[in-house]
């Protein structure tokens, strides 16, 4: 009995840490850009499948997305060609250089047969820029749109990216190697090394984001944009760049969580959406603005998920998503206390 409980606890905490990286991404994107990003989970899928391709020695399909996106960027800036050919030339050269660099590091990594952790770094470099591209296509053109419009747009992004994932990788699942195979017996419970890797990565990511926000100028600019967009703009902070940076970091965190999660489950084109939503359920606890409360929320989600998978596995998703109701009730009671 105790063994089972311990096992469920470890399993729940591992899941919770994966969702924590998602919640981190969601809060970051929401605070800086006011986008409730339903599509955040798709970076989880992209990260996992890119890593799967790299580990099996294939050129990852993500390159198509990256190069396609860069091309679209150049086309969208086409109106600038006549007005300002130098700027336009810079954009084109930049896009070509970025594409060439992406292909080069991928080929290099495949030729060198890097270990898992090296391949993860390469996959990260391929997936994270997609966040910036999507920001450029969907948020940048209408920075002052309402939250509702951004929610709907992110639904569209999620559908398209998931469809492209199906087109590139097909419907079949992919197995992904863990950073280090095996595990260790701690008391009565077997803990895979991958769980430790997840713990360490999650702590490093959160700590890194904290240090970045508190102790660098760029990080402080990001915080300022999150607190007061217009005020930040008046202070000379390029809020558009801040938004792009938030999307970049969020894509990176989500992709990492996908790469860490993939060995525990199997990776396929649909995996991201649900992970993203579970990040949301946890994040709702902090109103999508409060990091510590969001972390508490995702830990509850993770624990509830592994317990319900054990007790009533068919109803797992129903139980996890129903958790949103008590969370929202709790928030509205807090709102009352605050007196608004």
């Amino acid at each position, binding site marked *: 009995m105790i063994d089972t409980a311990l096992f469920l606890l470890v399993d729940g905490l591992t899941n919770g840490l994966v969702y924590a990286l998602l919640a981190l991404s969601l809060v970051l994107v929401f605070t800086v850009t006011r986008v*409730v990003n*339903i599509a955040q989970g798709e970076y989880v899928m992209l990260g996992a499948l890119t890593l799967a391709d790299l580990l099996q020695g294939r050129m990852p399909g993500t390159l198509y997305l990256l190069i396609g996106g860069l091309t679209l960027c150049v086309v969208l800036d086409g109106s600038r060609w006549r007005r300002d050919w130098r700027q336009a030339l810079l954009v084109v050269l930049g896009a070509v250089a970025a594409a060439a660099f992406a292909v080069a590091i991928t080929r290099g990594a495949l030729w060198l047969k890097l270990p898992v952790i090296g391949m993860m770094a390469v996959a990260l470099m391929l997936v994270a820029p997609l966040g910036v591209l999507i920001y450029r*296509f*969907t948020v940048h*053109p*209408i920075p002052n*749109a*309402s*939250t*509702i*419009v951004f*929610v*709907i*747009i992110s*639904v*569209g*992004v*999620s*559908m*398209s*990216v*998931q*469809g*492209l994932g*199906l*087109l590139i990788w097909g*419907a079949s699942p992919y197995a992904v190697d863990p950073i280090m195979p095996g595990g260790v017996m701690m008391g009565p419970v077997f803990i895979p090394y991958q769980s430790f890797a997840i713990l360490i990565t999650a702590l490093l990511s959160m700590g890194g984001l904290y240090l970045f926000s508190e102790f660098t100028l760029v990080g402080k600019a990001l915080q300022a944009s999150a607190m007061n967009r217009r005020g930040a703009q008046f202070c000379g902070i390029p809020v558009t760049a801040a938004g792009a940076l938030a999307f970049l970091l969020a894509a990176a965190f989500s992709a990492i969580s996908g790469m860490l999660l993939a060995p525990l489950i199997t990776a396929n084109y649909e995996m991201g959406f*649900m992970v993203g*939503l579970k990040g*949301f*359920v946890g994040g*709702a606890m902090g*109103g*999508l603005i409060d990091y510590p409360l969001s972390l508490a929320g995702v830990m509850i989600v993770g624990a509830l998920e592994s317990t319900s998978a054990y007790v009533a596995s*068919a*109803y*797992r*998703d*129903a*139980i996890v*998503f*129903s958790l*949103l*109701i008590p969370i*929202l*009730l709790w*928030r*509205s009671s807090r*709102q009352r206390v605050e*007196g*608004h």
Partner: protein
Amino acid sequence: MPIRGMLAIAVSAVFLTAPWVLPSFYVGIFAYAGIYALVAIGLVLLLQAGQISLGQGAFMGLGAYGSALVARAYGVDTLVTLVLSVSATALVAALIGFVTLRLRGHYLPLATLAYGIALVSVFTAWHDVTGGASGLDKIPPLSLFGFALTDDRLYSQLIWAIVLLAVLGMSRLRASRTGRAIATLESYDGMARSFGVDTTVLRIKVFVFSAVLAALAGGLYVHMLRFVSPSPFSLMTSFKVLIMAVVGGPLSAAGGVIGALTLESAQWALQDILARWGATGNLEVIVFGIILVVMLLKWPLGLWPAVERFLPKPAGRSSDGEGLARTVMKEDRQAVLLRLQGIGIRFGGLQALDAVDMELRRGEFVGLIGPNGAGKTTLFSIISGLLHPTNGSVLLSNEKLPASHSIVRRGMARTFQHVQLVPELTVIENVALGAYWRTQAGFLRGLFALDNAENQRVLATARLALERVGLSAEAELATASLPLGKQRIVEIARALAADPQILLLDEPAAGLRFSEKLTLVRVLRQLQAEHVTILLVEHDMELVMGCVERLVVLDRGRIIAEGAPSEVQANPAVIAAYLGGSRDKAA
């Protein structure tokens, strides 16, 4: 009959005869389009209220499973089970709405998304009752008193008749008391509450209405197909209906119909093309996702405006006849209507107001002046219940200030420093919002056009208010087409339509031309003769000094002087506050 009405009848006739002329394969597709159109119409209303649901598919599912399972198990007439399952769905939606719509921030899309996934996974997991993922067959057809509707063409006609009725009802609703209030929900929450709209309850009503349409559509779907399984109610359906509403556009229920027809045809065409290329799986979602993003970026109003451009303008509803009865007030200078006691409010480190005491007696005309940033607008927000003070209390007719949407019912109306007129409504409709609290007709009466007499009196009241401020010529114009000065006067007309005993005016003369200022002064004098109590915030000193009986001067959150205009003008502290210099010495 107006041309627009005749066109509507002609188009309806085409939709209703179509099931009898189309080849039988297309009859089914046409019926499906009608079912999705019904769901999309509900979503259009929700979009108009500035909300969005990502779980309409699940509401369809609840309506479908509820009706199908009960009818199949107990052999009850399906029309009865359909009504029951739609009512049950309405209850569920009311619960979700109650939990999410009271919260600040946008939780409805997340909550509906989570609810949708949870419900579909229950349909799949509860194998003994629902038949699990493979579904249940032998669902009875739509029936009442043993008469069953099994003819596909007739069924398709029935579906479209319901869709057309929904469109008609929505267009009636749009021009009703509730419809005008719904138009405020997206961006003017505070203004709407000041004029008596309980915005939270109205949001919940709109959400429940959208869920009811979805559940009805789900029920019609399952009794047509006579087979029930979880997949038609999945997230993909919710997203598809969302795209339909966005493609058609949120301006009109007809947009939902156009969106449904467009998207259903596009889906069939795309699947056909993709199948010829040998593609497998739902690859059309890539295109759908891109359509959704591009529509919102480039044409956020959808396809409907492109159609409506060719239609004659809809006839406004009649504003002839008498207005609503007005309260007649007697002179009673002793009655204290509004009493502020020790009001203080703190925003973070800023003490915006500190220990403000003030009294307004019936029929008094008081000016509230002070330099910019003195706290005048903040004080207005506190008096109208939109901000809660940190200390002190506000007494309205010797009672504690009620919730913000009930204040106007106690006779207090206001205007806003930053004009808060709803651009989607005409001038007279904006003014009619002022009379919201004086009338009763609710959501359903608006929907079924049972509010004609009352609505006409409301519009007559609005017309009289516009006449009073000299804007009757502009009544039917689009609000955004007026210059700012006239928009401010419309704000005053709206407050007059509320039949106030106390009127709070926040910088009504800013941006007004001289002739408009004269009209304003004339209206204010008239109101004073009717014993309306007025509190005026204004920077135009000539206007203030010429009108008011008493002045209150606010500086840096405190009252620094109070009295007749001539006394205040000579007060050294006031001069220092306005002209700078050493305030401490002056005090």
